[in-house]
């Protein structure tokens, strides 16, 4: 590829938050017609860099040059007008409006202040057509799956220049693939390639290394707010990349691969018989032994979370019963489960788990305090000691109990949530996608933690989208398909991801 002038150049970018230097002297450049990956662990400064670029944060130092001109970007609107569009992980569109309206809202074609609906629909249809998408632009956005909504968001972002053709020079895709399935990802990639051919510079952030290697041309690696390097994707293999991101060798990851799972599980801890809920999951039997890790495998929406929620009493079962430690538990509310020693880390750590405006300490102490009741506060000294212990044990960064949780990176938020439940010393820990959206280093740490908890005798119900992850950690793998627990497979050397996949696909275990 002949190297033309970069469309975007950021030089010496500095961004400081109270007490933290989030970015120090970072250079970044983006060429037209390339897909460029921004890599780094959580907390490395990827989000901060993007937010500086899109005008959400104002920068404290450095320059941004767009198309050869120095620019100052003070708001998301200004960024859009300058030709920098962003599509976020969550789809930021209005589900109640039609696809066409979502593409055009805010800049509908009007005549004398009257919206020209026919023209709007026609132009939207042309735009969607040109990008090779098959979408009925008149239908409400909510009638389409998330993946299509994401594509619509991209179409919208391309059209921000208004007028003819895409006015967008730089398209930022911030983890667009985290909730898409494989076919949907391919659809997204084909759109990205098409745009790249049209000369759009695409900045792509994803935690899936395979995806980076599939679609990107070049990558910039950040670590702890500093630039580590810029590489062509073809020049750097995955191992090299991970080492750059972590700043250390892969040892800690290999260690996990070789880890021998504890085989002698103890007595039965949880016994579920015929537990089920109409519309949630078909009745299932499940036995969890002390110190056993049960991994749940299945597609998104196959009932993994529903199963976990039943075991926690977050949803009420219609049928069946649960005994924990030999005692029947009614499971009519989470409190019953908590009382019986069950802890549940939700997959939606933002909406269902953490309180972003409270401090790390308050968040960690929440569940323990709740289980004691509000009339018996935990003594300050004991509380501080506990919090300090878990911050250290889980390596929560920054190691400041007074930091507000909302300001932590995703991986560290997940650790805070874990700490909250660990502190109550549960007998059964349910982890629903604990590693989603967090970087590879934090992933490894959380997985190691699961192993050591199991060794200490805690039972864990582990839900993860990545089969390898489930296989690596679990003694037993529960396979779900179409809201039914179709198989329980004892883990062993002969169990491979493809065997599990076969079970998921066929619904039976050979």
């Amino acid at each position: 590829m002949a190297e033309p002038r970069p469309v975007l150049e950021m030089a010496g970018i500095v961004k400081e938050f109270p007490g933290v230097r989030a970015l120090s002297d970072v250079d970044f450049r983006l060429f037209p017609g390339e897909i460029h990956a921004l890599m780094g662990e959580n907390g490395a400064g990827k989000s901060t860099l993007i937010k500086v670029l899109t005008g959400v944060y104002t920068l404290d130092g450095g320059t941004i040059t767009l198309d050869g001109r120095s620019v100052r970007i003070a708001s998301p609107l200004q960024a859009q007008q300058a030709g920098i569009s962003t599509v976020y992980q969550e789809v930021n569109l209005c589900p109640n409006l039609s696809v066409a309206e979502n593409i055009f809202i805010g800049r509908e074609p009007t005549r004398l202040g009257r919206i020209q609906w026919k023209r709007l629909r026609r132009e939207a249809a042309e735009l969607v057509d040109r990008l090779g998408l098959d979408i009925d632009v008149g239908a409400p956005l909510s009638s389409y799956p998330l993946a299509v909504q994401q594509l619509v968001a991209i179409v919208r972002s391309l059209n921000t220049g208004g007028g003819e053709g895409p006015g967008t020079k730089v398209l930022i895709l911030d983890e667009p693939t985290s909730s898409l399935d494989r076919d949907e990802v391919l659809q997204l990639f084909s759109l990205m390639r098409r745009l790249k051919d049209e000369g759009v510079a695409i900045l792509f952030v994803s935690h899936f290394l395979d995806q980076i290697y599939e679609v990107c041309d070049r990558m910039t690696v950040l670590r702890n707010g500093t630039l580590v390097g810029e590489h062509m994707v073809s020049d750097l293999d995955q191992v090299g990349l991970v080492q750059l991101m972590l700043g250390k060798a892969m040892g800690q990851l290999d260690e996990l691969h070789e880890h021998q799972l504890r085989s002698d599980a103890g007595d039965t801890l949880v016994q579920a018989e015929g537990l089920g809920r109409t519309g949630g999951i078909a009745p299932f039997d499940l036995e969890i032994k002390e110190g056993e890790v049960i991994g749940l495998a299945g597609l998104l929406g196959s009932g993994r979370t529903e199963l976990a929620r039943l075991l926690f009493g977050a949803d009420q079962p219609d049928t069946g019963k649960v005994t924990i430690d030999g005692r029947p538990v009614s499971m009519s509310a989470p409190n019953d489960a908590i009382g019986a020693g069950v802890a549940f880390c939700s997959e939606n750590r933002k909406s269902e788990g953490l309180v972003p405006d409270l401090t790390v300490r308050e968040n960690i102490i929440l569940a323990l305090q709740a289980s004691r009741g509000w009339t018996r506060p935990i003594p300050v000294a004991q509380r501080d000691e506990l919090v300090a212990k878990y911050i250290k044990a889980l390596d929560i960064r920054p190691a400041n109990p007074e930091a507000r949780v909302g300001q932590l990176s995703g991986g560290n938020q997940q650790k805070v949530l874990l700490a909250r439940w660990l502190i109550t010393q549960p007998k059964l820990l349910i982890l629903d996608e604990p590693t989603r959206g967090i970087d590879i280093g934090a992933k490894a740490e959380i997985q190691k933690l699961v192993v050591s908890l199991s060794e200490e005798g805690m039972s864990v119900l582990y839900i993860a989208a990545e089969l390898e992850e489930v296989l690596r950690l679990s003694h037993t793998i529960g396979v779900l398909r179409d809201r039914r627990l179709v198989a329980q497979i004892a883990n062993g050397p002969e169990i491979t991801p493809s065997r599990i996949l076969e079970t998921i696909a066929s619904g039976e275990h050979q």
Partner: protein
Amino acid sequence: MSATTQSPTASDSRTPSPSRAARLLGDRRLPVAVTALLFLLMYGGGLARYQYYGFAEPQVFLNLFIDNGYLLVAAVGVTFVILSGGIDLSVGSMIGFTTMFTAWLVERQGLPLLVVVPMALAVGALGGFLMGYVIHNFEIQPFIVTLAGLFLFRGLCLVISKESISISDSTVSSLAQAQASLGAGFLSIGAIVSLVVLAVAFYVLHYTRFGRRVYAIGGNEQSAMLMGLPQGGTKIAVYTVSGFCSALAGLLFTLYIQSGDPLHATGMELDAIAAVVIGGTLLTGGSGYVLGTLFGVLVLGLIKSIIQFEGTLSSWWTKIATGVLLCTFILVQRFMTTRKKA
């Protein structure tokens, strides 16, 4: 990792062509159609039961507009607010205040009606603007801000006068008695104004950028902001519209009743909200039609008429019927939205 994502069901999710029945159920116009149908059924029922008592007179139908014109105007304003995801509780007080304000200026100060009308409308719009400003700039829930408005304007009524002021101004009474003949019957000025307001609101909501922004904000405020829409300005404008409509409704009410009273229209905000919800607008915002609000108002009006025709029922039955209807409609809406999500 790609392993789990090789989904055997992925192809299903890519062909999103819902069945016709599902489409119909998911159609956002359905609630309006249901309310319109209810209105027709009630009207038909009224015809069957009271046809020899004069229910079949076209004027009975036109009276629905004459007797409920002010409520329609107020409900149109509330429709804007509810579509944007907010709520306005100050409507009734604003109507009461406008009746007092107008009666006082016309009767006690001797100002001509032509001067008083724009003043009253300006006060209403300003009141709405201030509430919108507070809601947006200080990020306070609309419920509490407009509740403050409710108390404030009701209190201001009493500052003007503790007693009712009847209006004997000749302009007012001639306007109140003016009738536009429609052959078989007639409409009052208030009814005509309310229909014009309805038409304007329909145009604004469906054919202007402002109108679409109202829907966008009601659908997802956070998204609307990230899409670069001026969501603050829109929010303030929505409450200004509601304040303006309340003041206009207050003027129509003054015309209808020809007096100002500090207790006029107490609780009318709730009637307006009920009409909007019965008309199929979701209280969560983003979905609904101003035309539905018309049918909501007509249904409420028809309940009153039928109870009058029945003769033996006390007027409190109006409230009971409204309550039952409201409850039914909310449950129906709930059912429909959950179906949609499933």
